[in-house]
Each structure stands twice: as C-alpha cells, then as structure tokens.
C-alpha cells in the first residue's frame, strides 16, 4: 500500500480557503445596510414554511443519498476485488 501523502489534501484546503475568502471579504467589507431586516418576532415566520422545509430536507436527503451511493460503490468494488482474487487463484491452481 502506498504511503498517504498530505500534499494534495493541504493544496485542496488552501485552494478552498482562498476561494471562500474571495467570497467572504468583499461581502464583509460592505456597508452595514439593514433596511430589509426586521426582528424574527415581528416577521411573519409562518408564511411559506413548506418551501423552507422542502429546501432543507431535499438538500440533506441529496447529500445522504450521495454518501450512500459512494458506500455502495465501495462495497461493490470490495466484492469485485474478492471475485478477481478467487478467479486468479483458480487459474493459478490449474496452471
């Protein structure tokens, strides 16, 4: 087994950090304009709740489904490796 290299992970984290900073810095540097904001208590929080619920549940379901799909792929690969090992062992036995 190859030793694990930290280089790609560190590079990926640095690239991501730069990307997030690009998103955040101009936004944080803006003037504090709170014209559109009111307190949660005075706002109509009941309106359109099903849409909000749908967005948050769909996002979570999608991420969990993707993680499940990857774990299934991993399981299939493991059984495929096992099958290959058996086939090669049988062939070696015949030879």
């Amino acid at each position, binding site marked *: 087994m190859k030793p694990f290299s930290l280089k790609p992970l560190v590079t990926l984290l640095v690239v991501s950090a730069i990307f997030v900073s690009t998103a955040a810095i101009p936004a944080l540097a803006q003037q504090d304009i709170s014209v559109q*904001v009111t307190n949660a208590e005075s706002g109509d929080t009941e309106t359109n709740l099903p849409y909000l619920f749908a967005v948050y549940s769909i996002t979570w379901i999608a991420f969990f489904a993707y993680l499940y799909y990857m774990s299934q792929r991993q399981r299939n690969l493991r059984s495929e490796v096992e099958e*290959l090992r058996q086939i090669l062992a049988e062939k070696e036995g015949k030879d």
Partner: protein
Amino acid sequence: MSIGMVLKNGLFVVCATMMLVILYLIFMWVPTDNIQGTVQRIMYFHVSVAWVAFLAFFIVLVGSVGYLWKGTSKWDHLAYSAAEIGVLLTTLLLITGILWAKPIWGVWWTWEPRLTTSLMLWLIYVAYLMLRAYSPPGNQGARYAAVLGIIGFIDVPIVYYSVKLWRTVHPQVIVGPAASGSLDSSMRILLFLTVATFTVLFVYLLIDRVSLRKSEDEVEWVRGIAEQASHLPLSLR
C-alpha cells in the same frame, strides 16, 4: 488508523459540528427579512451551494488542465470526482432556486439570464459525466472530457456576472468580487459561515470520491491484466 483516515474523520466531525451550528443560527439567531419573510432563509443554502459548485467546476478545470499537461490519471480522477459533486451541487442549486422562486416571483421557473445560464451549466457538466460513462475504456474519453471540462468552465463567470450583464429579475450578487446587494451584518456573517461549512463538506466528499475513483481505476486495471492472462473476458458484475 492511517493519518489519511484520521484527517478524513476529523474533517467529517468538523463538518457535522459546523452544520449543526449554522442550522441553529439560520433558524434561531438571524433576523427575518421583512420583505421576503421566512422563505429568505433559503438564501443561505442556495448561495452556499452555488459558490461551492463554482469551486467544484474550478477544480474540474484545474484537473483537466493538469491531465492534458501531465497525462497522469490522478488529475483525471480529481476532475471526474469534482464534476460529479459539482453536478450534485448544481442540481441542488436549481431545486433550491425553484423553491425560492415560487413564493417570491409566483412562478417556479422563468427564462431569465441567471436561471438559463445556470441550467446550461448543469447541462454542460451532465454532458461531461455522460461522455465519461459512454466513452470506451482508455485515455481517449478522459482527454475529450478534459477538453469539455476546460471549455465548460467558461459558463461559470457568465452565470456569476449574468445579473450584471443583462437585465434580470434575479437578486443582485451578494458574494464575491461583483458583490453589490445589501445584507444585514448578521446575515453576512452567517452566509460566510454557511459557505465555509459547505466548502468543508465539499472537501470531505471530494477526498472520498477521489479515493473511490482511484480504487475503481485500479480494479479495472487488474481486471484488464487478468483478462490478458486468461485470453477470456472475466464475467464480473
């Protein structure tokens, strides 16, 4: 346990903790928009998903350039994995956008520049994945896909600047270099935290997917060798 596994598990714990924190902040801490009402809280996930999708397609670009330049499969694995996660994120971007548009605009979809270019972005990278799925094994499919990965990225700045370039009903950009929309300071901080959280989630998914892709490639290679040795196709699932 290897350092890689410790780091991956650590990243998962960090991501899960950040997710719980941002969910609490989104629903309990941040004020409600007095025009859009509570549905405005969709924005935190919608904008974060968009930004991380752009990051994913940027990594596809980097991986594609790296593959065409160096010709090593690790760049191809990176590009393919990022494209797959990018498509998932763009799908979520479109769905969350549609669910925000209905209560705010009164329609599920309208053919305005931001929505249309976003749909095009999704189609480009779905085409990328289809090209990979239907191309024969070997380097040819990876090379064609790398070219598509580079050309496809042209649509990312078009999507981002579409609200500046054309007259549109979509809200102004509130994240990144072209930011001009106004947000309360607490909303801005929360949006930054949500973008950071989704970035950590993306890095976690990408590490997992690249490692899986590498294993798939290795199994394919071993199968090829075994087939050559036996002169018969091996019937595997």
